[in-house]
């Protein structure tokens, strides 16, 4: 009984660590976007520096998962949970890297004159953040329905990214002086779109944990 209790405590701790990483990632993305939209270079700088903590956490979670797999021989749902945690944290780490990319673009753009207001980028940012938030919440509450919502949002993100690309190409044609800034903005949009994709991966891992079906690349539970 005691062994059983300690084992479930270990699984609980693992979940908490993943959530910790998720919280850090989410705040990194938020800060990077604040740095970009509000032209706040301090926040962007924080994201670039803070990425190391997330990287270390990923390694730590990986170690934990491996130890659990090797020592406890988990079965069924527990096994899926551990594998799922590994997938989630790989994707979270990549999202954090995208946040760093955005922050670096922001650091550059903030030194240049501001481009005109870009509501499309803002919308894309909102969608990506919402997707990340939802996928983490789905993981936290083990709710496959929430994960499915994340998958459904991905199309909207892709579409917006496409629109932004076209908009900036038009803009570059008209305004040659702003080509560099426009390209950087396109990169930011591209990063956001990638964040959405990665959040979808997290959601897929959640569906794998909860329902035991692998919906990779289909995203139809």
């Amino acid at each position: 009984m005691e062994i059983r209790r300690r084992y479930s405590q270990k699984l609980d701790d693992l979940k908490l660590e993943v959530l910790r990483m998720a919280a850090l990632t989410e705040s990194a993305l938020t800060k990077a976007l604040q740095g970009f939209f509000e032209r706040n270079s301090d926040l962007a700088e924080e994201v670039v520096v803070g990425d190391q903590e997330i990287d270390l956490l990923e390694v730590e979670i990986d170690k934990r998962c491996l130890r659990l797999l090797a020592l406890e021989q988990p079965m069924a749902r527990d096994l899926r949970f551990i594998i799922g945690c590994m997938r989630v944290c790989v994707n979270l780490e990549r999202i954090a890297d995208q946040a760093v990319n955005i922050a670096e673009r922001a650091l550059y753009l903030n030194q240049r004159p501001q481009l005109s207001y870009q509501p499309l980028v803002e919308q894309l940012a909102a969608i990506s953040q919402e997707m990340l938030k939802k996928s983490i919440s789905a993981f936290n509450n083990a709710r496959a329905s929430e994960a499915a919502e994340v998958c459904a949002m991905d199309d909207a993100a892709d579409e917006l990214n496409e629109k932004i690309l076209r908009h900036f190409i038009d803009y570059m044609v008209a305004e040659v002086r702003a080509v560099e800034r426009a390209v950087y903005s396109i990169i930011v949009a591209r990063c956001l779109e990638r964040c959405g994709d990665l959040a979808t991966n997290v959601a897929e891992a959640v569906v794998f944990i909860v329902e035991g079906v692998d919906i990779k690349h289909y995203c139809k539970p």
Partner: protein
Amino acid sequence: MLKNLSFRSRLLLSFWGVIFLALLLPAIYYRQTLSQDIEDDTRSNAIHQLNTAFWLLYLEQPFQSAASLQEWCKTLGDHLGTRITYVARDGTVIADSQVSFSRVTAMDNHANRPEIIQAYKEDFGTSSRYSTTLGKHLIYSARKTNGRGAIPSGVIRVAVPFSEVKRRLDNLSKNFVLAIVVTLLATIFLSYILVRQLEIPIRRMIRAAQAVGSGNYRERIRRYPGKEFSPLAQAINQMAESIETQVQTITEQKQQLEAILNGMTEGVMVLDSGGRIKTTNKALGKIIPDLPTSMGRRPLEVIRSHELQKACDQVIGGNYGPESQPSRLEIVLDLGRVFDVNIVQFGDREEGIGAIVVFHDISELKRLERVRQDFVANVSHELRTPLTSIKGYAETILNEESKGSDSAGDFLQIILKHANHMSKMVDDLLHLARLEAREQPPESVAVNALDGLHSAWKACAALAGEKDMKLENLLPKEGVLVRADSEQLEQVFRNLLENAVRYTPPGGIVTVSSDPGPRMVTFQVRDEGPGIPIQDQTRIFERFYRVEKDRTNHKGSTGLGLAICRHIIQNHGGKIWLESPPQGKTTGSAFFFTLPLAPNKR
């Protein structure tokens, strides 16, 4: 073993024990004595008869043959009702009263019968035995005789049946066993009734005690089976009473605590030693939407803030002591809400260290602080820009004058323009201050909003004409009657239209429409400008707040227009807000404001 038996069985068993002892011992004693007496009596009877037969044998003439002895035996036996046997010295039976003469010779040798052996030894012998010849229990008595005539010397024996008495005695024992069985059965019934009488009140006591145990502390034991049980009943009653009062006290304290917790505007979360949420209060529901599911989870699982989790872990894992300082941190949650979080240790070493986490919403404080800081920075900046220009041009004019140049006129124009701008700004500020202080309560007269719109558009006409812009007026032809101060209404329209014209690209259209409700009417001023970023939308009504951070190009506005609009509308009891981009559009923004409708004149 007895302990496991029920009260009823124990009572029954003891009853039975007593009955056995009381009935069986005397019965056995009496039976023993009685059968001894009967045997003795029969024996003496047998001896008596033997002596009679012996005497009669002597009186008789000497027998000529064994047959005549047989005849005599038979006659005497019939008269005495006994069996008389004559056995010769060698053990052969010569005559027997109950066996025919022809069969006498076939009888067993009787020499080894105990009574006969005893008779030869002591002249006289008795014995009680079961006779195989007659199939009866008999008492034998025998006496040695001398032979006379044809009869050899031998033993004369008399057998008295003992079986009649014995049978009655056996019958008696049988009846006696039956009596015992009946008594025992009766005892079962009796003990059942007795136990039942005891059982019903005891059951009642048990029920009362159980009721107290299961939470009905009002239950008392009023009747109990006997004096012996009264202390037990009293003890149970007392226990119930003290439990009742204690539960009441605890409930009251809990209710108080809950009332205090739920009455607080701050969110409170209590963590146990494992770092899991044990208690929350109602105000926390504003921070955690699904509060009921949060019990037993960890802070990070319900509030996505790693700083909070880290601080909680530190407090719970830290050393406990009265001097331990509460941990303080600020966390930013969704929608930019800022919380001041205090974490305090509680509990002790034995029961484990928990933590109390208090969330204080300081978003409004933070916002006001930022507004104030921004206002000071903005107002000084706004005033300094024209002042710098005025100063610069004035110095230039002074320099030029000495050189005798005639460009002073142009410069003076510029100085005038900046001075006008500054004076307009100061006017607006004063106006705003008056609105804020509500020095002039709006005159609530019925005004046609259409008139206000027309005069406002006229004021913007110059700028609009420059940019070749049009006003699309979607107000009803007869106008909209609202209760407002006509001058202030015009100012609201003018400010909104000015902004719309200023930010819309040349050739665009500004649309004004209205949407009457039951008591209020909603006006909409929509432009085709670039729109307003989401994070600026809540702050755009602040004084001097500008979307564009670089102030080189602010197109001649004072930055106070929207602030004035908001105050006017609020003073009229309406609301003002914006949507950017408006519903169904990708660019542009729409400003909405509401005003009370004037009662319709008929």
